[in-house]
């Protein structure tokens, strides 16, 4: 059973809810090694994105994701805005014209999102950024699908990998973004961007499980 644009919309609404619920948490993480705005920014962005969804709700997945990406770019600001905005826009590009998504489409979209983030931010694995959560998630998704997992199980693997990736940022010394200015003092703190990335993947896995698990 392919994923529908309705599932995608459900997913986006739930992402907005989860981001709102974790607003203070993400901001507190950012206060420790950044500038205390990541949760606030993401929340503002997802709220704005939801507002722009109604006119495109019956459009293809690509249009929906690009709409979200553009909304994030124009309302989040900071590093998160261009990075998540680019991620959603790139994902939208590979899903142009599609109303039903096969597991491979989901993988292609998430992979495009990752490439977008790397293209925009030039972070390497281990730099203590969202890339450290997104990269293992995409890898886990690819592997699970190769091993014949259904979309729900595969996204669960991706979310678990993102969670592990997020936790792995704790001992890292930041080399990109604001946290890099702290040098050694960045060690011991979990990266806020990696955390928001995990939260979004957790939503995807949950929605998939509820529907297809």
């Amino acid at each position, binding site marked *: 059973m392919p994923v529908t644009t309705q599932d995608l919309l459900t997913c986006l609404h739930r992402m907005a809810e989860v981001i709102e619920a974790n607003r203070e948490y993400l901001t507190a993480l950012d*206060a420790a*090694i950044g*500038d205390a705005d990541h949760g606030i920014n993401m929340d503002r962005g997802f709220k704005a994105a939801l507002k722009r969804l109604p006119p495109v709700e019956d459009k293809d997945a690509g249009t929906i994701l690009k709409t979200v990406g553009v909304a994030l770019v124009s309302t989040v600001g900071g590093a998160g*805005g*261009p990075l998540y905005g680019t991620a959603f826009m790139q994902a939208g590009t590979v899903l142009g014209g599609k109303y039903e998504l096969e597991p491979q489409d989901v993988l292609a979209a998430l992979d495009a999102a990752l490439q977008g983030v790397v293209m925009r931010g030039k972070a390497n694995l281990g730099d203590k950024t969202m890339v450290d959560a997104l990269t293992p998630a995409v890898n886990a998704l690819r592997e699970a699908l190769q091993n014949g997992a259904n979309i729900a199980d595969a996204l669960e693997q991706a979310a678990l990998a993102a969670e592990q990736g997020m936790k792995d940022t704790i001992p890292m010394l930041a080399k990109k973004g604001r946290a890099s*200015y*702290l040098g050694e003092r960045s060690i011991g703190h979990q990266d806020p961007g990696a955390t928001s990335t995990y939260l979004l993947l957790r939503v995807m896995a949950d929605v998939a499980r509820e529907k297809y698990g």
Partner: protein
Amino acid sequence: MKKLINRPEDVVKEELEGIALAFPDMVKVHFDPNFIYRADAPVRGKVAVISGGGSGHEPMHGGFVGVGMLDAACPGQVFTSPTPDQMLEAAKMVDGGAGVLYIVKNYTGDVMNFEMAADMARAEGLRVLNILIDDDVAVKDSLYTAGRRGVGTTVLAEKICGAAAERGYDLRRVADLCRRVNINGRSMGMALTPCTVPMAGKPTFELAEDEMEVGIGIHGEPGRERMKLKTADEITEMLAISIIEDPEYRRTVREFDEEKGEWVDVELVDPPFRRGDRVLAFVNSMGGTPDIELPIIYRKLHEICEKKGLIIVRRLIGRYITSLEMQGCSITLLRMDDEMIDLWDAPVKTPGLRWGI
């Protein structure tokens, strides 16, 4: 949190409304997307100089819009980079046909948003160049960090490039001048107290009664090092010596190559200060520092510069690039040549900086 505000989420919007009412002879304000622009924009045939960044650093950047300085400023939310649509619409509003210079402080968010904006503006047929300011010597290397932050030199670059644009320099020349100001400016800052972002509602860090943060940026983030409190003279010496003895600094930055039509990596080198250099000495308050303390800092800085053979030819002392109510200061030294001095002295009429007019 104690602030003279209404709802935290309305702070930037209401600030902009107030600015529009308060300085109608100098600036206008555009909402959705938000930007402040010169009351007489666009100025035909003049290069437009635009900057922007998070709010909370007032008077930078919105307070520097006006004759002889910026054509437009894009304010983000407090301490959060503005978004490309603001920068794009600002460029379209103030472009006088001679192109647009984006002066961008080197923070990941600012850099990425201004790059996206420049691409979008070029797609709409504008000529746009981005020049980075990365002058904070508290960030030692560029390989293992996002590179030096853009701090105090930004104010000086905006003044000098604004004057150059006013004089009729073309886009390439204003951009080259901006890069030259950047590689000749160095800064470092410290904080006695944190500050509170209205939307966050609590201080961005905690400091004991006998501690200070050294090597801070301008976003209320903790600095490079936490130390025991020292005297004004010791603090000034620490900052000034870090700046004056900072070795040659090399890094690559991304600039747009108009011939190639793409972004390219450019290597920049900041030459170290030498005896006999003429400098502008800039003592900046982080916002909450009582004005009585700034001359005390300047006094020591003056003494150190003399000892090190630097000749102070111009000075700027006050609150120009701030972090809300944070107490603390930053020092910037800019090596000046005749052209920069002349442009520095040129008339400027903005809410935050004014002389000769």
